């Protein structure tokens, strides 16, 4: 590092602060003043931490993160919600698919800052009271996975696929589930699972 500690624009030792915050990214309430300061400075240096509140699976999560942090990395590296997977980080594979305000999005191409104020639903938020969501149960029943790495993304995508009205036929399911790669190629079983769960999900 060429920069000396304490030489930041506000005189605040950001390097030491980042080092301390990196391990447990949840910010204590006492850091509020520093947080505001950080958000102002972020406009000048993208590497400075910013405060963001993400609503994940119905709960507000306050984070202090690099402004370039994606929703995926915020979930995985900062909130320890590792169900959403990184398969390409380019929006090409779909393993990171989550629902944001009920729309399926690739969380690797969505900045955490851009998701503030929206409802993020991940695979961890799908089951309720220890009961599997109908789509999760359908994936089990139809053996719709092998290694399982793409599965959280497939399931989130499948839930949205049904709600979008794109699960009316097998051909439709195949088309509208083609944004999610399964390298084990469980595709026929995935289509069968979506078909099985669709009526139950539409029923509500």
């Amino acid at each position: 590092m060429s920069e000396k500690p304490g030489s930041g624009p506000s005189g605040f030792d950001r390097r030491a602060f980042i080092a301390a915050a990196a391990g447990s990214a949840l910010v204590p309430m006492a850091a509020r003043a520093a947080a505001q300061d950080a958000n102002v400075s972020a406009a000048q240096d993208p590497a400075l931490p910013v405060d963001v509140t993400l609503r994940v699976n119905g709960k507000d999560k306050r984070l202090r993160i690099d402004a370039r942090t994606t929703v995926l990395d915020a979930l995985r590296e900062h909130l320890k919600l590792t169900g959403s997977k990184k398969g390409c980080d380019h929006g090409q594979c779909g393993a990171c698919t989550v629902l944001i305000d009920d729309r399926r999005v690739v969380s690797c191409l969505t900045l955490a800052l851009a998701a503030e104020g929206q409802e993020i639903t991940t695979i961890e938020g799908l089951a309720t009271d220890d009961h599997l969501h109908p789509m999760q149960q359908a994936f089990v029943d139809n053996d719709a996975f092998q290694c399982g790495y793409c599965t959280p993304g497939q399931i989130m995508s499948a839930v949205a696929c049904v709600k979008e009205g794109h699960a009316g036929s097998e051909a439709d399911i195949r088309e509208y589930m083609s944004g999610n790669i399964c390298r084990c190629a469980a595709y026929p079983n995935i289509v069968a699972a979506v078909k099985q769960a669709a009526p139950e999900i539409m029923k509500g």
Partner: protein
Amino acid sequence: MTAAAPEPKANMGRPVPRYEAAAKVTGRATYASDMPLDNPAYAFLVTSAIAKGRIDSFDLDDARRVRGVIDIVTHENAPKLKESKLFSNGGYAGTTIQPLKSADITHDGQIIAVVIAESYEAAREAANRVKVSYTAVAPSASFDSPGTTTAAAKGQNAQFKEDPEVGDFAKAFDAAEVKLTASYETPTQHHNPMELFTTSCAWMGDELVIYEGSQYVYGLKNGVAEQLGIDADKVRVVNPYVGGGFGSRGSMTPRTAIIAGIAKRLNRPIKLVPTRDQGFTIATHRAETRHEIKLGAGRDGKLVALRHDGAEVSSRPDAYCVGGTKTTTRLYACPNVASLVSIVRADRNTPGFMRSPPEVPYLFALESAMDELAVKLNMDPVELRRINDTNVEPIGGKPYTSRSLMACFDEAAKAFGWSQRSPQPKSMSDGDWLVGYGCAATCYPTQMAPSAARVRLQRDGRTRVEIAGHEIGTGAYTVIAQTAAERLGVPLEKVAVFLGDSDLPPAPVAGGSNSTASTCSAVMMVCDRIRQRLFKAVMPSDSLTDKAKETVGISQAPSTQAAKSDRPLDIEKAFDALGVGIVEEYGEWKPEGAPLDSFTAMHSGHARLVGGHQMKDKIAYAFGAEFVEVRVNRFTHEIRCPRLVGAFAAGRIMNPRTARSQLMGGLIWGMSSALLEATEIDERNARYVNDNLADYLVPVSADVPGVEVILLSEQDDHINPAGVKGLGELANVGTNAAICNAIYHATGQRIRKLPVRLENIEV
């Protein structure tokens, strides 16, 4: 029941759902990169932008200025690591090219620097700010590039022992009534498992824990220890779930020891998440191959001469090859056979095993040629296979332990509707679509390796099975749990299985489709010992103990026989008689014909695989037959594959549900190897061009409308106690040939180079 869970036939286990199903659908299954670390630093790789030459200098000023950067490691300050031999020469490594050792660049995308920072974002930015000055040398990219060297595989690759031959090929071919000579070509392919090639390393004093997706935790543990120069007992590799392997995680890659060394120096856990494109060059791949096949036959279709010459590309330092002639020279009856495998050295990263390494390229050539021969003979291609079917392989004259090839052809043909095919090319169509039917044989050697297991049984029936096997999507947890439940006579839901941890008893590499046969045979043996102890406790007299021994079905008896003679055991009564709370057994199993050093090798991370054609007095293979329908649009030349039908016989099927899924995935892989997958190489710069999941085409749901898997009942008492042949690599073999055969049938055009894309069709 659903289509996913077929009704078991004779010699098949129950189609129970996957052991880890709930964990996988809820996101609770923890893969290596999901493991929590205490205050990790993040690593980002910098890889070379040239394929050959040297690094003159780095300019790291910009990179170092990035906020949060902790360290930048290059060859000038990298941890010193010991070399590791290639796995095929008795080592652990998938390549002997050791990055960060010198300024030399040996291939495109070689690791040349590692940036460590407080966050992933900072590490990535700094890595992008590393400036490198190179002196580049013109590289040799592939077969047709100037500067490659070519030599016979035999003598330079320790695992390639022979170019199989028998009789007098030249004479027989000259005299043959019908002759075919044809050349075939298959492309470079990358495994692209969904989970990236991540590595996390954490030290506790002098003990290292590695979280990395691996198909061989004992190999990785011992390999990293060797490179770091520390005791292997100080290294633990943990990965309870692996996000796909397909061969890419079977041998050690250079990244692991580098990250471990840096973590030690910084005294901090490090998490490396390489990018998808880096994965194309920091691990292995399937090399491109070329083949020439010569077939001579009588007018009756009987083969009289067969020659298969193959050439494969490897890196400059490593003589890797797959050498599939060991299979193609033995598949059909033929008295005069010759073959030769050559290795072409280019400026590339070292290739490695990818799902059915020898069979995918080599059977493409043979099964395409068989179809061409059938056309020359004006004979149904299924009948040509029947005429040349054999129960004795022609090279060594050894009998197959079992062979259901023609039964597979007949079952699959019936399900597919092969009889509806009109034999003439271009004779079937549907609107704008030319329709073609094609078929091909598949086979894969039955392989086994020494394996250990520990089983613990409690009085209430709760059972714990520990074995350092690997769940790469194959159903390993499930079939091991089923094996233990069946052998001990306890309910399946009382069995807990622990895999993917090198602190557990050793299992072999999850490769060569040996895992189920090896690990289940070990678990059976250990469970039988527990049963024996319990029987002894409740039947103390000698005669009864002997009888108990018989009925328990110890030793090499296949599970089916044991199951038949199984007798109920009152576990609680036995525990009371023994006066203990827990019975635990550890055991080491090795297959027939395993070398003397098998068990010591097993503990030091060397899997001694035996089987296939290397067995004494016999040869063991699983077989199958695949039928495909292809549609080629007569105007756009778009190629679709609406139907894939495969019938397979692979000894005992432990679980028809997981087996069907794996074979189904295999069929789709086979289709993909024919129509989609190829890593494109920039011929001038020897660099991979389409190194991402948008440009490297893999199948998606829309590509696979109809797949049907037929499991044939087969019993083989001559392979291993589990009676299992293995099927993970059976279904993606031959599919590529079946598709090209169907394209010929649809269009009249014979295509001998993969993949087939619409621009290759000239209707």
